[in-house]
């Protein structure tokens, strides 16, 4: 917690005068609370720089922006509801998505302890604001790449809860027919590109998806292809080489990607502060030539505003953004983690900032919905989850023939059998009764 209250040195003067329209738009549309800051790439050779380039470490005034100042700049004088960040529909959508994520994960824990789910299960409780804040702004064609903590990213992106639950139970009706499991959620239809067990593995893959988007626009001439990619990963991943390799290439080729760091301060039992030389991850963006944002990840509205900005940048072709979300996982790293190293006071502090409770408070205070509306949503989600569990329970496990299916898109990859014909043409093979 203390890492984020440290004084931040910002370059404010030189960049206000920059002529790039993207930056100007960003500066004026900048919103959020006092814990949101932007550090622009520092260019020592700017002709109109008012700061001496030979001593970049001089302390400059901190540009802290308070939420009331920013919100007031968004007010249009004649509209009664315009001092709010969201409409009623959006508020209910956000609430429903976060409650879905929370209830689903709670149900996962129950099912795991009852033996219906097995292996590694990593739950997302407490971090819902990040997933909801970002993914609800995406189009279906935009892609999301995640890590092993991917159930809620899948749900926010639109994968039906019953498909995710069935996948977790290892049934044939799961989104990957039971072949991926908790850590490997994929859906081509919803453009959820995983689900990766190795941390850092998803970042280059996400960068590649963003590359495809740009390639389609520029080489294949699909003019309206402005699809963006979100890469979600944690604080521990930010020390991995692949992260830096991709920050470099994404900025170099101006790819439409947003790197979303879910900094929950802990990598299993390794505290972020013990593992990282400079714990302020948002600063690493500007080192590679992209803006770095830091946002309060326990507040879905703040996350959403930053997300709008970053996604807009990417869609306009202005390149990548690094967003660090300060968040917290209420449960252990996985269901097998005894979670002994984290201080109970720290947990209590963050539990008091529960994103769902915060959104509920906001919605009711600003009369966007009533208590009963929200209760109705909670009830609806409960039913969805119950139905998902029943569906998963009732689904069959994968048939034996599924073992050898889908190793290759072209099954002739299994080669030629002893009879001189391709193995996949042998009916015993596809039924799973041939020798493997």
């Amino acid at each position: 917690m203390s890492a984020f209250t440290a004084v931040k040195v910002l370059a404010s003067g030189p960049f206000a005068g920059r002529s790039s329209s993207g930056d100007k738009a960003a500066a004026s549309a900048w919103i959020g609370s006092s814990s949101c800051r932007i550090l622009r790439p520092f260019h020592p050779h700017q002709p109109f720089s008012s700061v001496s380039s030979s001593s970049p470490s001089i302390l400059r005034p901190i540009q802290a922006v308070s939420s009331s100042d920013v919100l007031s700049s968004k007010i249009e004088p004649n509209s009664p509801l315009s001092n709010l960040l969201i409409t009623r529909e959006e508020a209910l959508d956000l609430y429903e998505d976060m409650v879905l994520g929370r209830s689903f994960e709670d149900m996962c824990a129950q099912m795991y302890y009852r033996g219906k789910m097995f292996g590694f299960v990593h739950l997302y409780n407490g971090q819902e604001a990040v997933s909801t804040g970002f993914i609800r702004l995406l189009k279906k064609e935009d892609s999301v790449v995640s890590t092993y903590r991917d159930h809620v990213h899948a749900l926010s992106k639109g994968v039906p809860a019953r498909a995710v639950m069935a996948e977790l139970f290892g049934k044939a009706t799961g989104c990957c027919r039971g072949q991926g499991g908790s850590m490997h959620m994929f859906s081509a239809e919803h453009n959820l590109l995983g689900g990766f067990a190795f941390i850092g593995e998803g970042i280059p893959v996400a960068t590649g998806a963003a590359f495809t988007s740009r390639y389609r626009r520029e080489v294949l001439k699909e003019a309206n292809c402005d699809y963006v990619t979100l890469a979600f990963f944690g604080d521990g991943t930010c020390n991995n080489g692949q992260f830096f390799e991709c920050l470099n290439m994404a900025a170099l080729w101006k790819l439409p990607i947003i790197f979303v760091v879910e900094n929950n301060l802990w990598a299993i039992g390794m505290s972020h502060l013990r593992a990282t030389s400079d714990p302020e991850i948002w600063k690493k963006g500007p080192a590679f030539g992209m803006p770095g944002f830091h946002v309060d990840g326990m507040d879905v509205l703040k996350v959403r505003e930053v997300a709008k900005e970053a996604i807009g940048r990417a869609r306009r072709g202005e390149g990548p953004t690094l967003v660090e979300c300060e968040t917290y996982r209420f449960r252990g790293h996985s269901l097998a983690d005894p979670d002994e190293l984290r201080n109970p006071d720290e947990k209590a502090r963050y539990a008091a900032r529960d994103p769902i409770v915060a959104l509920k408070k906001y919605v009711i205070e600003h009369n966007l919905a009533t208590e009963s509306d929200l209760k109705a949503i909670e009830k609806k989600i409960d039913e969805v989850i119950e139905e998902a569990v029943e569906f998963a329970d009732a689904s069959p496990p994968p048939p034996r023939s599924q073992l050898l299916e889908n190793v290759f898109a072209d099954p002739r990859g299994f080669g030629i059998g002893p009879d001189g014909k391709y193995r996949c043409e042998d009916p015993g093979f596809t039924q799973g009764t041939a020798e493997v």
Partner: protein
Amino acid sequence: MLGLMRRVSMSGSIPTSMLRQSLQRILPGLAILERGYSTLGKEMTVREALNSALDEEMSADPKVFLMGEEVGEYQGAYKITKGLLEKYGPERVLDTPITEAGFTGIGVGAAYYGLRPVVEFMTFNFSMQAIDHIINSAAKMNYMSAGNISVPIVFRGPNGAAAGVSSQHSQCYGAWYAHVPGLKVLSPYSSEDARGLLKAAIRDPDPVVFLENEILYGQSFPISDEVLDSSFCLPIGKAKIEREGKDVTITAFSKMVGYALQAAEVLSKEGISAEVINLRSLRPLDRAAINASVRKTTRLVTVEEGFPQHGIGAEICASVVEESFEYLDAPVERIAGADVPMPYAANLERLAVPQVDNIVNAVKRACFRSVPVAAAA
């Protein structure tokens, strides 16, 4: 020795392709002088074959793009991608920074999302820095996603020993990649192989590891008109019988096919007729062709350049023992590189890699002819 070679070539008793190979071993830089030798019929170097295959596939499908170190402005570290930057532009021929893990992952992500990348590794030794993406993100993906997401990507580059580049630049990765389900692993020998297999690999919807050989790049092979056609493709998973024989089967891939052919020539003078199989595809391995050949000849010698333990020869031996045991008249002989990291000194390097003599001796052992003890080392 050079003088002897020249005299022999003029008498016409050694094929010029073998002459070229022998000269290449002595003077690796001789590749440039290649074109001066025999040009009867149409010939093409492996380099030209690969270049033309890439060119044709890129022009046929705009989703195919190249990425790798030095593939663009440098015209390719080994000039395989020469001219492609000028023809297709920097958006389709990408010079990457030195970030194997990063750019291989980017290639895999692009393949997930609909493009057809061809990722070049300057040598396959560098692929070890990216092997997580080749195996975990590419090979296993179609299976993990139950067919949702396929990965039509090709990883290509030179594999195996070059000349005097020492241990970190000389390993053969055939056995490593052929071990993994979900990958297809190809290793061409001649120009026809190179063209046909690379085109097949690019058109294939699955991840393909394409193991080339630096020494073979400059070598010229005769080719037919059919090979020059732009739709020419070789099937993946089928081996080729380079030379028919009846006494012993020799299997090999990549550069070792050339050595096996030379050995077969030497052996034919001693009355042993060797059948040489060019594997072409390490995964899937054409077990049917190998077993059919062994059942005909009853003896087997496997040749590979890589380390012996758990290598390609081990798998072939196991396959033959499982399926054609009663047909074997002699134990299977495995010729592989020495079980040491590749040394630098030229004489030690020669000892660490199989030579034609080693193959000849192994065949003789399999045929129960007497062989001097020292050669068995």
